[in-house]
């Protein structure tokens, strides 16, 4: 298994990852069809990449009323069964990283699936905010660290827009 590590401080907010994602999955360029979102706070020059972290204890999994969300034993990733999903958005409401990690695309909740081991978004991320690395103790620690940093950014008052 590999890890998709997101360093928010490296993100320049260019949003190319969204385009790569939508092209790979839907053969069109459309941020609304992307499973990764860059939430921008333009006054602060900040872009926060939002995508599924595949938590070890995912809250979305337990709240799903149709049991559409499960963990894939083989890849270790959280997956959503599109046939079961009703688009009720319960999962979006409980995600600790914010609702934008789970997108409702064409009526179905959709999350990052690492493109089956070859994530397209990583290929276009020139500022190294997205990296796809082997799962080893050191990288796992990094992932944890960067995930916490992202949570801090999302929660911090400083990074709310000042008007």
């Amino acid at each position: 298994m590999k890890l998709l590590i997101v360093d928010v401080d490296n993100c320049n907010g260019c949003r190319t990852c969204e385009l790569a994602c939508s092209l790979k999955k839907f053969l069109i360029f459309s941020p609304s069809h992307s499973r990764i979102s860059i939430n921008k706070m333009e006054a602060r020059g900040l872009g926060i990449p939002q995508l599924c972290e595949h938590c070890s204890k995912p809250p979305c999994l337990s709240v799903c009323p149709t049991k559409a969300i499960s963990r894939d034993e083989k890849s270790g990733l959280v997956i959503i069964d599109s046939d079961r999903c009703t688009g009720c958005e319960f999962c979006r409401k409980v995600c600790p990283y914010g609702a934008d990690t789970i997108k409702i695309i064409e009526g179905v909740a959709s999350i990052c699936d690492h493109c089956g081991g070859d994530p397209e978004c990583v290929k276009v991320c020139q500022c190294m905010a997205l990296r796809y690395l082997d799962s080893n103790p050191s990288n796992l620690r990094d992932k944890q660290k960067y995930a916490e940093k992202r949570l801090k950014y999302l929660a911090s008052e400083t990074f709310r827009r000042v008007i």
Partner: protein
Amino acid sequence: MMYLWAGKILFVDLTEEKTWVEPLKKELCPKFLGGRGINAKLLWDLTKPGIDPLSPENLLIFGSGSLTGTTAPSSGRTTVTCKSPATKLYLKTSMGGHFGAEMKFAGYDHLVVLGASKKPKYLWVNDGEVEIRNAEHLWGKNVREMDGKIKDELGDEQVKIAGIGPSGEKLVKFAAVMNSIYNAAGRGGAGAVMGSKMLKAIAVRGTGDIKIKEPEKFLELTHKLREGDKRDVGGQRSWFFGTAGNVHLMKNTIPSYNYLKPAPDGLEQISGAWLVMKGFLKRRVGCYSCTRGCHRYTEIDEGPYAGLYTVGPEYETFSALGSGTGVVSTEDVIKANDEANIMGLDTISVGQVIQWAMECYEKGLLTKQDTNGLELNFGNSEALIKLIPMIANREGKLGDLLADGVLSASKKIGGDSYKWAIANSKGLEQSRVDTRINKSYALAFAVNPRGPDHLHTECIAAGGATPRARELMEEATGHRWPEALKYVPEIVRWHEDTYTISDCTGFCAFVCTAALAIQAPEMAELINLGSGIKLSKEEIMLAGRRVLTLEKCFNVREGADRKYDDLPWRMMNEPVTWEPFKGMVSSKEWLDGELDKYYALQEWDPETSWPYKETLLKLGLEEVEADLEKRDRCPSKK
């Protein structure tokens, strides 16, 4: 259905308060490509010559590049086109940021604003829904406040907004259209046109898509281009240090003290490297689909400006508000830059008018009475920071005088002050390049349809910094570099064509004319894969020339001729006084010689500078030829 282009143009008539959508004519796409090209065509078609740029008859056109909204590296630029209040001639001014892509995802390649409202308005484009909304509560607000208030009102942080600050409302001749708060379509006063229409802002949210003819191949090619771009040293530098990265190495070439003296001591403090090393730089910010992030996000942690957060400064600003005014304190320039940004001013022009005022003050043409008590000496950062909002609000005698630009101000002040006005006959203040030293820039600046400016044509490849640059210059001139440097008109024309197609497609100069990773063949291939059109390298270069010629013809229709193609007085008459460039000047005689060669190359009439009838027909500009023929401004080749 259209590939690559969204396929629609949104029209907004503010006088009638009505909006409508027209399809983008398919046959325009291969001919004018998009962005700047189709904008120019719309402006030519929809305006009459001789109109007052600040009247409701002027248009304000936003155009996203044809490759904007795709993974093509750094292709997110937006062009704003109108008749310029500063030059009363053609104006295209482009901006980075995220506005153009959002507009395309909302379904529009171009947005045309007509007429003028009587009360402040802003436009809310939410995919197919378009609404003209009240903006009385936003009038007078600076750009950052305006952006925040609109986002709050619409309840969406991800809305993209292009708008004006107080300077646009006050019709300052160099007011910018700002988008994503800090990205400016700065030059030529497009912000004043927006202000004259009482349009405070345009907010866009798009959830649509862009269809691609051959999606996999397209993506593969853009991956390849990104890989190539990664290996570019200049690209890496612009990511790491920004556009102002090497200012400290430009002691003898960076325009300083209104082009009078070499750079002030302490120049390193106003460089991109200093921003990084001293910790002012907090983040690197990218425009849409950017590969670089040369845009800087900076904060000041201590001192009188502690807590200030803003972006930049970038090269032009460090030079215009820093070395140009003799101010080398990093904090002061950051503060001045932020003032100019949130007031919605073009930092190049505002820096230029302040330098001119400083020289007038030191030489006794402006007194303390004229300046509201400001000691307007070179190097006085306090005066610099105070003066910027004064100009934006046309406050006091001085603010009002300077708000009309340096040429108009020098006419009012009289004396020798016209000699210190760094603007050419078109009336635009020159960008921060010493055109006495750099000859290809000199010719390019003289012939630019919008005035002496680097983002219309900047002859970077002529510097021959990389093997690729030297190769391209050899291709353009037929001679090996540096021998090629003698062929200034050929160099200028190559850069003009390349710049034009990169503006049309939405590419940033940093990947096209600075880093050279993406050239005409790559752009043609991207358009072909994206849209199914078949364009060759030659055809796309020709499209660039067609667009540039159309822009030139707009000026011809307005009555401009050869005497508008010149340089600021100081560049033509006052040689550089410092080593190693001592004695260098771009005299009128030299310029005339180069102009003759340039017009011959372009197949324009040398006497008037007007394109020949045959040239226009060859470029497929029949309707332009017919119009100019009627006005007797279309000479035949003898």
